[in-house]
């Protein structure tokens, strides 16, 4: 028999997963994903970002991908959107994106 507490536990657990549909995350990480970005390794950056969020159970971050207009040599570009501001980072590596996520989440919690 389900208790009210268990009902609430399901609600908060699944609600985190549905944040993708409600655009309700305070931190948004946009990873460049055009052809030049992919050839410069953006898929590895994406994989690292997703892993970081999953491992640390971060529920306040949303990852998106789209074309970011920078020079090919500046890929992989990553846009961090938080506190109403957008900061563009260029030549990001998987390690850098992990750091960016941690930093953005920490700052957003402050």
């Amino acid at each position, binding site marked *: *028999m*389900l*208790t*009210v507490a268990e*009902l609430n536990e*399901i*609600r908060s*657990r*699944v*609600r985190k*997963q*549905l944040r*993708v*549909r409600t*655009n309700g995350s305070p931190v948004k990480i946009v990873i*460049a*994903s*055009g*052809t030049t970005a*992919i050839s410069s390794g953006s898929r590895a950056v*994406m994989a690292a970002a*997703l*892993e970081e*969020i*999953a491992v640390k159970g*971060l529920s306040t971050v*949303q*990852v*998106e*991908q*789209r*074309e970011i207009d920078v020079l090919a040599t500046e890929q992989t570009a990553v846009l961090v959107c938080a506190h109403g501001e957008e900061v563009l980072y260029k030549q990001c590596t998987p390690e850098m994106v992990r750091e960016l996520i941690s930093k953005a989440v920490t700052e957003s919690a402050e």
Partner: protein
Amino acid sequence: MAYVRSHVLVCAGTGCTSSGCKAVEKAIEQEVSRLGLESEVKIVETGCFGFCKIGPIVMIYPEGSFYCYVKPEDAAELVSEHLLKGRMVERLLYRDVQNPKPTAFFTDIGFYKKQQRVALANCGAIDAENIEEYIALDGYQALANALTQMTPAEVIHMVKQSGLRGRGGGGFSTGLKWEFAARSPGPIKYVVCNADEGDPGAFMDRSILEGDPHAIIEAMAIAGYAIGASQGYVYVRAEYPIAVNRLSIAIDQARQLGILGKGIFGTKFSFDLSIRLGAGAFVCGEETALIASIEGKRGMPKPRPPYPAVRGLWDKPTLINNVETFANIPQILRKGAEWFAAMGTENSKGTKVFALAGNINNTGLVEVPMGITLREIIYDIGGGIPDKKAFKACQTGGPSGGCLPASLLDTPVDYDTLTAVGSMMGSGGLIVMDESACMVDVARFFLEFTQEESCGKCVPCREGTKRMLEILERITKGHGTPDDVDLLLELSATIKGASLCGLGNTAPNPVLATLRFFRAEFEAHVVDKKCPAGVCQALLSYSVIAEKCKGCTLCKKVCPVDAISGTLKQVHIIDKAKCIKCGACVPKCPFKAIVR
């Protein structure tokens, strides 16, 4: 747990299913797998998005990109461009009829802008076969709160205060209905959900059951607690296989979690649900006929009183509400009676779902606040009339309602105003007709429907509708007389006053409304023997305009009965005695020389 960055929502309501959404979903799954995106992308099958005309619909989050008319062969581009490279596929984005520029986001589409979704809130937003997604959006919180924090009387009071009225057609106060059932003495009572949606073109209840079945389960359990019932039945048409399947899955899931069954949420309240399939008889939407059908008897109405709240299913007090009515209940309990009562008009609170059909650009399901005008629904949401034709009439209330003319387009849509102008709210069918519709033929169509669906129990309905239909057929065949119009009015009054149930009481409405607003068309049929809209074949006559005819012989070649004579470069002639009025010659003439 892996983080999923994108959700692909594939509409899997009946409309999109019939236009091929399953194949689209499968193709997207294959592409996602081929590109190794399975752990990043989740594909979700949802209920109806409402915009059935442009299906199959696919929506991709977090962007909220709205793709329409998606085919399986579009899957490769959709996945590689949008999901891998983050580039929207412009050619699949929605384009408004008036504005060919693509609309990228769901929230910017005119069809949705003026809508206020309460009963349809979760339709198209969640996986209807996943109870956890329903719970995530506050599902079953209203039930938990009612059972642990409220008395049954407080629940009923809140429903009464909200001003919710029955959405199935009658418009009776839902709270009062609950109160009557609660006050009826007896240890055994029942809650019944009327999902026997039968109005031609109406599918709001089907969509709610397909897209948000748990809302109905939750509402019925709340109703059971409020009136003291421990068993409920959903009476649903067997022609709704997707709705029946999703409801069955939802009931099983609720049972497994202990939301249905004994001692719900650790309280002493027990409640369970069963599904009863109807065979599609329109009369079974009438509550006493529905009860008879659940009992295994032939679906025929009984005289009321006693009302079902006093003596209903198996002679026990029974509360019957329709699907859309129930769909409002969890939100009223969660957000408060005042929240609900703040929407709509003085006597018609909340929102109403309409099925837009007929000669309208945006066909589908819309939910609007009560009090919105017909013009706003038809033009702002429905996108107006196709092919630049003029609006002629709209039928509200299904076969029990009436046709309203263009002069009433600014009528606010609420229970009392629609009744006052000669139609009714009904369950929410809204059929739009353009200038090419013949109102006599429309009246005949609806009367043919009610006549066929009459159960035959009472004489006024069984015989009266038959006679009315005969008169209307006579008129459309050119054999009507002016006395026929008076006879229609006389018969209507008798049928309305003497029939046993709502089907008979309202059957003459389409005829009365068309006579009221389009009497000139009836007179043209019976006096001038003409059908102004050119629909009634027997009243049509084709002729050739000599000045325009070039004698090309194309019309002669296409005539199936050799009724057209003439030689090359000579004016042709139609033999009216031979002509069967099929109209095949009209579009063939390149010079527009043949007129009706």
